[in-house]
């Protein structure tokens, strides 16, 4: 395997007395697609929040391409090229799809001058081609808030691509999407990874989807890392099945 792009080492996070993450160690190699599964409340989203800097962690270290993230702020981390999407899709509801895309250009190396500049033509073209990639080209002049939930989800994904991240943390990309279209989405995710070279780290509840998508899967339960391995192994792992069915 190539070098590790994201290293999470012994990270613990507590909310008051509730332990959300305890002593979690995992790593995401450059250019891979890694899955993160676990029953509801097992601390997956908390881990994402910790990685992208929404809250300080009590212990442990998180490194992205060798840089320590635990003391950085949300925007700084995003500008490094480590981006996340949200479980409850977040888009800019009162702006058109194209505007949503335009504002999502990478924001590193932005000076005061660029702040007041207009968008060059290439940005708009790129925005439109990405909208086409996710199948929203026809709706590009509609208010993003008027799109259906599934479309918003796709828009959010396209916005993330617009930002040219090095790694994308996707929080349940298939939730709320019409089941018949999930395969198409999985295909797009794979193409993103293969063509654009973006590392994907995916939280997912849809087992069929994640087994199809990821090359390596981590499983959380009760805030702890339960097990990890390739999809075939996870599928058969008795501990994982017990965690999901609540056999403990």
């Amino acid at each position, binding site marked *: 395997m190539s070098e590790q792009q994201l290293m999470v080492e012994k990270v613990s996070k507590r909310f008051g007395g509730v332990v959300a993450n305890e002593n979690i160690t995992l790593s995401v190699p450059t250019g891979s697609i890694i899955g993160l599964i676990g029953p509801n409340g097992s601390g997956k*989203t908390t881990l994402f*929040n910790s990685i992208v800097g929404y809250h300080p962690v009590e212990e442990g270290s998180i490194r992205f391409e060798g840089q320590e993230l635990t003391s950085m702020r949300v925007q700084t981390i995003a500008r490094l090229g480590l981006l996340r999407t949200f479980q*409850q899709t977040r888009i800019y509801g009162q702006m058109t799809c194209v505007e949503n895309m335009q504002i999502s250009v990478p924001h590193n190396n932005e000076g005061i001058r660029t702040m007041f500049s207009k968008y060059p033509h290439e940005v708009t073209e790129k925005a439109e081609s990405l909208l086409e990639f996710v199948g929203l080209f026809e709706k590009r002049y509609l208010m993003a808030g008027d799109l259906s939930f599934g479309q918003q989800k796709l828009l959010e994904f396209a916005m993330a691509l617009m930002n040219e991240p090095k790694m994308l943390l996707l929080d349940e990309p298939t939730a709320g999407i019409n089941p018949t279209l999930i395969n198409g989405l999985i295909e797009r995710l794979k193409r993103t990874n293969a063509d654009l070279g973006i590392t994907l780290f995916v939280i997912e509840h849809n087992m069929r989807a994640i087994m199809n998508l990821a090359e390596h899967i981590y499983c959380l339960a009760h805030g702890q890392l339960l097990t990890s391995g390739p999809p075939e192994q996870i599928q058969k792992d008795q501990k994982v099945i017990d965690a999901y069915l609540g056999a403990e």
Partner: protein
Amino acid sequence: MDNLQILISAPIFSLQLLIDGILIGSIFALAAYGMAMVWGVMKIINFAQGEFVILGGFLLFSLTRVGFNPFLAIPLAAAGLFIVGWVLYHIVIVRIVEKDLFISILATFGIAILLQQLMNQVFGADVQTVDPGLDTWFLFDNAITVLQIKVVSFFIAVALGIILALFMRKTRLGQAIRATAQDARSARILGVDTNRVYATTFAINAAICGAAGALVVMTWVIQPFAGLAYTIRSFMIVIIAGIGNVSAVIFAGLGLGAAENFAGFLLGAEFQAAFIFSLLVVILVWRNFKLRLQRRYLK
């Protein structure tokens, strides 16, 4: 800062300020309790809170003018404000109760301006007060003077607070109000008429303010445009104490009363209002700073 010298050389004087501050603070706490109730139950920050207080004061003022005993007129002032609150709910608040907070702030702010101007038109812009006809106590060789009315109003405020707390705990309506505060949708599903609960809550809040205003006009003075300061005081107390924490509201109220009294003495009366509003800004910035260090959980 000459006055600081006085406080150092005559410490007894700070006791005087403290007593006065705490006694007046009980009235602030009462109005703040009402604001916390509306905020908690209806998710509305009522910016007309101070105007309700002043209106209560003017109501008592008018009632005593036509010959009522000021103490007997307190319940009447409260009842009058209850009606005002009820009517305002059905005309305006009902339309903003589940909209975003900015709309509710602006709408209640509009009500505040409307009430101010109405009072200005009806009662005139002059400062008014009501003499309750009580004596003054002199303590420590006349070093400290305590107006009896301040003590009386302190106990009235406390009694009203206790009655309200009991009402919220013991009666069915009080329980419905508390249920709605926790989760309006669930309460509605379980058969609580939330619209009625909202109307009652808003009206009760107005009544509380009316009573508070009646106490203000007897212990202090009122003026049609003095309402905003009471709104801001209530808001600060709620911010410091948190919504739904009764004992904290009381302590914050008394503390604010005392702090304001000291500040007014030290900085001079002309800066007392500036102190209140600057304190608001400081408290909000400080609260924000603290929150920033805490967790944020995003889905």
